[in-house]
């Protein structure tokens, strides 16, 4: 199997039926992607496949053959500095326990890629697939909206 992970060419052995989540975490050491429920309800395992937010617990690794996968490890800038969104998450207190943060960041990243003219309601809708139990979402929404300016 071949695909790109955070811009790097990856080739991996084994069954194409394995969950992308497990391959990322166990074979490729990309443990920033978390398992919260294993059935596509919480969004903690969100990754981007060809720019779309997908729950990696529901994807077989065979399905990403030849495609472009981005995880939280791929969000920082090329020089290793934090992106504007990552900075905003720290500044606004959008990450508390941090376990939903990687998935939340990826979902928010896609929203901001699609449009920089977002309302609070747009952000709520865009993040509705990612559960957070710490923040009440208010600070996450503020962090995302701060990046539209």
């Amino acid at each position, binding site marked *: 199997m071949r695909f790109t992970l955070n811009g790097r060419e990856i080739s991996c052995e084994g069954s194409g039926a394995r969950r992308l989540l497990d391959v990322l*975490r166990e074979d490729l*050491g*990309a*443990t*920033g*992607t*978390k*398992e*919260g*429920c*294993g*059935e596509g*309800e*919480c969004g*903690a395992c969100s990754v981007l496949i060809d720019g779309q937010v997908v729950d990696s617990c529901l994807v077989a690794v065979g399905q990403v053959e030849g495609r472009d996968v981005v*995880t*939280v*490890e791929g*969000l*920082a800038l090329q020089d290793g500095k*934090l992106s504007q969104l*990552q900075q905003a*998450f*720290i*500044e*606004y*207190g959008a*990450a*508390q*326990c*941090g*376990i*939903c*943060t*990687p998935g939340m*960041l990826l979902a928010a990243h896609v929203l901001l890629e699609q449009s920089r003219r977002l309302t*609070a309601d747009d*952000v*709520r*809708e865009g*993040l*509705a*697939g*990612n*559960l*957070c*139990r*710490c*923040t*009440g*979402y*208010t*600070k*996450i*929404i503020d962090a995302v909206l701060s990046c539209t300016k």
Partner: protein
Amino acid sequence: MVLSSTIGRSVPRREGAAKVTGAARYTDDLVIPGAWYGKTVRSTVPRGRLRSITLDPAFDWSRVVVVTADDIPGDNVVQLIRDDQPVLAPNGGEIRHKEEPILLLAAADRGTLEEASGHIRIEIEPLRPVYALEEATEVFTTLEITKGKVVEDLEDMEVVERTFRVGLQEQLYIEPQGAIAIPEANGAIRIIGSLQCPYYVHRALKRALKLSDQQAIVVQAETGGGFGGKEEYPSIVAVHAALLARKAGRPVRLIYDRHEDLAATTKRHPGVITHRTAVKKDGTLVSQDIEIVLDGGAYCTLTPVVLSRAAIHAAGAYSCPNVRIRARAVATNTPPNGAFRGFGAPQSLFAAELMVEHVAERLGMSSVDLRRKWMLRLGDTTATGQVLNESVGSELVLDAALKAVPTAQPLNRRTARHGRGLSLVFHGSGFTGSGEKKLQGTIGFEALADGTFRILTASTEIGQGTKTIFCQLAADALGVGLDKVILAPQDTSLVPDSGPTVASRTAMIVGRLVQEAAAEVKERLKREKAPLRLEKSYFQPDSIHWDETNYRGDAYPVYAWACTITDVEVDMTTGEVRVTDLVTAVDCGKALHPVMAEGQIEGGCLQAVGWATIEEIKMKDGGYQNDRLATYLIPTALDAPRIRTILVENPYSRGPFGAKGIGELPMDGPAPAIIAAIHDATGIWLDEIPATPEKVLAACASR
């Protein structure tokens, strides 16, 4: 150079960068070479006697490690308050709930584990289970609080009686429970896990595995939320992992999946609370007679302490000359209930706050006016006879919330009705009664030779900001930059026992110790040279008195206060309740880090919104029917209202810079405010949460 204080400034979270880059390592992220996978085999019946465990001889058992109660070297007890809960059900012993652990398996891969578990036969002789709290005959604990004398001669008085019910709730930290056990030299076992209280786990390990203080090592990994759910349960996960690792002679990872976590771990105690309140026609509060029954589930866990906090808060944030609170916790054959943010207070305050509404309605008064008349003020006496002599924020938060009250939102749908509700609550910060005195939480503080300082505590970061706030407190007391202060890892082989990370005590009690230790080190450095180290333990001031036997005296060092106003929309066709706005004013003493204080409050409020509206656990044959995240729903970003927090600073003399604990308080206020708002919208009074569409429609229909 004079460094400006960071107290009151929202500096970046210590581990913030690690959390936004994916570098933070949670338990399941850790790569442990040679580790096997563990699994817990559980009871499928709610009550019975374990007769036999048979391993199918057709399976090659050399591929797995099997642990039963016979493999426990120490006591077969989960160390907590009462020795009633076994680590694993013993042969011939009673199984008291569904999902009770019976045996443990470990194997090199998950496939072998699954295969092996299909070759085990467990024979249980069924016994008659008790599910309903009303039918329970076994009582874990009872207590009574009395102040004055409940008034029986009720002539010329209005008497309002009402019974309220609250349901189970799951903490739903997004990272499920998990621990990795690693056998080390000299019979030691190292646990790395997702947990709130390293020393709880340490004590449990010592007891069940017969280990010395040094042989039991407990390390907290980055932890993905707790909310009380990782207070006592991690002791079970850790002991199980340790038993497997000991027998396997290699590391074992025991990581729950969401389904197991939902099905087997502790929930918020459900309860039934009845109030009988007597008032004069002018609204003067004369007497409160309150009965509380909580369902503890199958084992005691922390139930007596939960009941205690429930009872102490049961009269609400009000001053009444005559109070009787009778409380008991009973046993049922359901999975044990345990710690959950608020620890009994959300249950009893839900009832207390709605009673204000019902009395106000009976008298034809505004419930806000009635609260103003009743509320505890400086110098007033609580139900336990505690005189409130400082930092009483009742009126401050009420005024602040009313001033910020949102303007009514336009309705989204023609069928929806809009309503608004308010609540006023208080919450004791720190352990109840003599808890802090008995525990004597201890921290270490070091000045290192390179000019940096190190804080040593067992207090854990679970998202609430412990790491950041401790560093702020130390840096400020020392007059150095934040970069000069580091934190030792939460590892029992390195840090003293500063107590569990629970009870809204970490910033206020342990934070104060950090502040004092840092100040002392600064003084000593005027005469001595680094490196130096000191320890500092909690010292109970003589002014705090608590009579445990009679439940009289200073139940808490101080209280935090909150007034919450919620707006709801009720869809009259579907019965769906949507919380559209939520404003909460909180007297936190002093906001050490305003963004984190707000974050705690907002998260707690939304957890309470979930409890009040959508989070329902349906029981079937003693188990939870909706034990998956597809069926147990929590609020998403779309369900959540915008939450506005107003921090009111009303300093407490013994808190660090005046700070009071606020971790649990936000769980108390939203539920009763939402039920009052539903009444405002529809005219119905619900006595039970969650306010599901079925309940709303049924109440509307019978009106």
